[in-house]
């Protein structure tokens, strides 16, 4: 129906499977281990908890503007997209198969709170295996592109996985961090971080701050078509440069983080950081539309 009316489709509000349908060439998504295979979590049933037939992630092959890619979409609606043993194994299998099949790129539609703690060590191992598989794919010359625009963001282990990718594409609504707001508040107190202050949460972890800090390379509007176009451009750009993570890139990243800490480490709020970066009208940044924001950030963002 949305296609008929040609309205923008919110990436944030779409389910994982809706995103796969809308992101890629129509009807091109072919799923590996579809729900009818019923490869479900062995742990959740023991805990008397509900399972999903796809364990919260759909993986497969799709065409992106005529280019074959492998893709995975995490479903934030099922346990916040958290990575359990089966969920993680599906991501690892996809990344390994990408290497075997020498696919042009892997596009990960990340939406996850991180490890599914119900599954304890199996979940922790699963997410670390995803990181290793992602870096192995890059080492084999397969670029990995991560999209972050779901309401659950990309946190914990999946935040790390996201930052291991060649390119990260976010919307302002997307969030990317290690510990989630409630975890920080629980561990360090409400004075350190008020997880109920939604404006603060988005200022600190949302796409605009990540773009200014150099943690994501592209920022787009909350529109599936915008994500599709950015992913397509990223796949094309990645084909012209080495995909592997080099020592030089790692050292440059470390240097950037050192500089970030020394320049901004003592500041309390992202607005203070934006002011220190000489962003015009720093306090008004959350109100800017994406194009005005990109223009304002052009010469000032880190890693530009």
């Amino acid at each position: 129906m949305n296609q008929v009316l040609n309205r923008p489709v919110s990436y944030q509000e779409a389910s994982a499977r809706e995103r796969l349908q809308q992101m890629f060439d129509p009807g091109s998504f072919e799923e590996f281990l579809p729900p009818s295979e019923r490869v479900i979590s062995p742990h959740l049933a023991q805990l008397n908890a509900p399972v999903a037939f796809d364990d919260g992630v759909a993986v497969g092959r799709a065409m992106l503007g005529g280019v074959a890619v492998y893709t995975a979409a995490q479903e934030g609606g099922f346990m916040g997209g958290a990575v359990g043993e089966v969920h993680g194994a599906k991501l690892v299998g996809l990344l390994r198969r990408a290497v075997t099949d020498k696919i042009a790129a892997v596009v990960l539609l990340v939406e996850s709170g991180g490890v599914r703690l119900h599954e304890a060590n199996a979940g922790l191992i699963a997410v670390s295996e995803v990181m290793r598989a992602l870096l192995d794919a890059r080492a084999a010359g397969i670029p990995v592109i991560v999209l972050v625009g779901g309401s659950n963001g990309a946190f914990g282990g999946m935040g790390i996985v996201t930052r291991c990718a060649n390119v990260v594409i976010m919307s302002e609504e997307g969030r990317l961090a290690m510990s989630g707001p409630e975890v920080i508040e629980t561990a360090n107190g409400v004075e350190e971080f008020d997880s109920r202050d939604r404006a603060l949460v988005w200022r600190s972890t949302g796409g605009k701050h990540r773009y200014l800090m150099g943690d994501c390379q592209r920022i787009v509007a909350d529109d599936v078509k915008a994500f599709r176009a950015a992913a397509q451009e990223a796949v094309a750009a990645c084909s012209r440069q080495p995909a592997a993570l080099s020592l030089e890139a790692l050292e440059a990243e470390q240097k950037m983080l050192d500089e970030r800490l020394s320049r901004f480490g003592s500041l309390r709020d992202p607005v203070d950081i934006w002011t220190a970066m000489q962003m015009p009208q720093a306090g008004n940044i959350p109100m800017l539309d994406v194009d005005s924001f990109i223009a304002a950030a052009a010469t000032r963002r880190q890693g530009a």
Partner: protein
Amino acid sequence: METLNYRFEDGTQRLKSAPQVVGVVGSGNLEVLIEPAALDGACTIEITTAAVGFGPIWQAVMHDFHQRWLLADARISINDMGATPAVVSLRMDQAVQTMLGEA
């Protein structure tokens, strides 16, 4: 968790397309997996639900669903996280409509 099974024998409508899943296992929601299956003409429904003790309501909702669609040789599997009867009915209709290419 509770598992409920229903089987309806008098359906006439057979589904031809590949298995489909609709919905998400989230709070107040459910996922419905629908597949063609050789079941001697029957339509079977297996429900795994987090809300224990609502068997009679499920029975009524499944009966109504079967009367609407009269599916034959169809296997329906549901993972439920406390969806209301109206949501269940809408999701099941969406599943059949997706199979029929109407959604």
